[in-house]
């Protein structure tokens, strides 16, 4: 039984007032708050186990290494990856995409080849490919979205071809909340011999992901959007791909032998983890995975879906409100504009009511261009939000509208 009050009790940051009003945190698509268990895991590491990993012969280093590697195992299990060798720690989803674009892209994408992304991608799944295409003379193609904020799947076949090397698709859109039919996209992409990268930055806190069942080639995410710390994320890639890829960065930990003539690279996953990693972050990431499993992704997402449905109903009845993104398959995100009130003014006014939302382009400027809006306001839900907080959001919106009347 999902008990939201019990969940809330685990998040110390939620129990505070902002400008004399109870904090209503609805900016979860930007970053989620952290449960006590994640804060404790990071704190325990620094208080008891802090040491460098993989080479120490002392107790602390052995403990640090064990916790760091245990986090990798937890993530492998969460994603149902075949092997722990397929889980590479990165700074976040952005670095993971850059890793793939640099290492795999530079080796496998050449002049005249094509990379296909969608119109709803976050800038982090556009710009690295744009940079790669410019460097090698490849072409970036775009799968458009419709006015409901869904991918135009009927155009996919004509955009995929024998020159398509990679398809980069967001699993759950941060700007629209759309859940994309990634399984179908992967099947169609594989049929023309293209690899698929899924941007799961937004997805893992809300959806079950099984990389084997999906058969995706690359999956990336950031821990901080799934109750973990900032500055840590991961790349999942099929082992055969990682084996064939050259290292992304050179340095310590990614080698087995260095001479001035020749360097022998380390085995997976360490080949892609040059330098001292974000050990505390990885341990916190592992704790976040534990928390998600304990709380139950299904139970949490059912609760969030209820909040989204409740908020959407209220939004539809709200005078002058336009919902941006009305996909049939949606999670967690309510993006909208209000007639006569700019999203940034909404953001400021709501803030003074204790309600934290995001106002802006959500790092998805092409989405704003599609809907002909400079920005949207976005409320995004997590496991600890309540219907009462949705009510507070709409009360604050009414206040904003009155202020501008």
């Amino acid at each position, binding site marked *: 039984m999902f008990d939201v009050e019990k969940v809330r009790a685990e998040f110390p940051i939620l129990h505070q007032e902002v*400008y*004399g009003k109870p904090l209503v945190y609805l900016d979860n698509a930007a970053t989620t708050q952290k449960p006590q268990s994640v804060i404790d895991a990071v704190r325990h590491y620094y208080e008891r186990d802090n040491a460098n990993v993989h080479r120490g012969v002392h107790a602390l280093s052995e403990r640090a290494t064990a916790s760091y590697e245990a986090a990798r195992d937890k993530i492998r299990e969460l994603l149902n990856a075949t092997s722990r060798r397929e889980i590479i720690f990165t700074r976040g989803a952005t670095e993971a995409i850059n890793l793939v674009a640099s290492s795999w892209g530079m080796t496998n994408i050449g002049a005249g080849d094509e990379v296909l992304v969608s119109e709803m991608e976050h800038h982090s799944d556009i710009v690295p490919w744009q940079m790669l295409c410019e460097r090698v003379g490849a072409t970036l193609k775009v799968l458009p979205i419709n006015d409901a904020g869904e991918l135009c799947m009927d155009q996919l076949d004509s955009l995929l071809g024998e020159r398509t090397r990679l398809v980069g698709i967001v699993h759950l859109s941060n700007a629209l909340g759309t859940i994309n039919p990634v399984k179908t996209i992967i099947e169609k992409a594989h049929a023309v011999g293209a690899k698929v990268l899924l941007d799961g930055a937004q997805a893992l806190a809300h959806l079950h992901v099984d990389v084997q069942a999906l058969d995706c080639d690359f999956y990336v995410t950031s821990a901080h959007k799934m109750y973990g710390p900032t500055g840590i994320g991961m790349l999942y890639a099929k082992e055969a791909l990682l084996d064939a890829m050259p290292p992304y960065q050179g340095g310590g930990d990614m080698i087995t032998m260095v001479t001035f003539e020749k360097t022998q690279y380390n085995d997976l996953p360490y080949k892609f983890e040059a330098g001292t990693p974000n050990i505390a972050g990885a341990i916190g990431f592992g704790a976040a995975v534990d928390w998600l499993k304990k709380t139950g992704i299904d139970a949490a997402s059912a609760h969030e879906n209820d909040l989204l449905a409740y908020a959407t109903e209220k939004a539809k009845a709200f005078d002058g409100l336009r919902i941006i993104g009305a996909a049939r398959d949606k999670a967690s995100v309510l993006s909208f504009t209000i007639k*006569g*009130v*700019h*999203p*940034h*003014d909404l953001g*400021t*006014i709501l803030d*003074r009511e204790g309600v934290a939302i995001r*106002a*802006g*382009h959500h790092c998805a*400027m092409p989405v*704003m261009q599609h809907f002909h809006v*400079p*920005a949207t306001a976005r409320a995004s839900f997590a496991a600890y939000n309540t219907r009462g907080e949705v009510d507070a959001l709409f009360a604050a919106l009414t206040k904003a509208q009155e*202020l*501008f009347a």
Partner: protein
Amino acid sequence: MFDLRDLYQQVIVDHNKSPRNFGKLADFNHEADGYNPLCGDKLHVYLKVNDAGVIEDVSFEGEGCAISVASASLMTDALKGKTMQESEDMFGHFQHMATSELDEAPDEEVLGKLTVLAGVREFPSRIKCATLCWHTLLAAVKDRPEPAKTE
């Protein structure tokens, strides 16, 4: 306790709803773009300056939040009949007001109606909304080809 009405004063709400001097001037000899990449606000300022260096007419176009639209509207009202030098000085005073300590009273004698925007001091993330039009004005005065930014 700071009230939202201190930021969104009725004058600002009115200027946002019906901005003055909005649209392209039929006859102008200076212009510039302004852009705030953080929030996507875009402005374009047109100036008609005579041989004596006096601003005969000024207008703006663009989209943005209430603070940025009202600020541009109030600015264009305030600039008519001022010399280029006077408008630059006014920018200095406005910039000072927007970033000064809360207990410092804005200079009403120099800034006149523009003092209604003093409330942005309490909202650090919104100061740039109020100053974008002034940066754009300066770029127009100096005939800068690249869009003005608030940095």
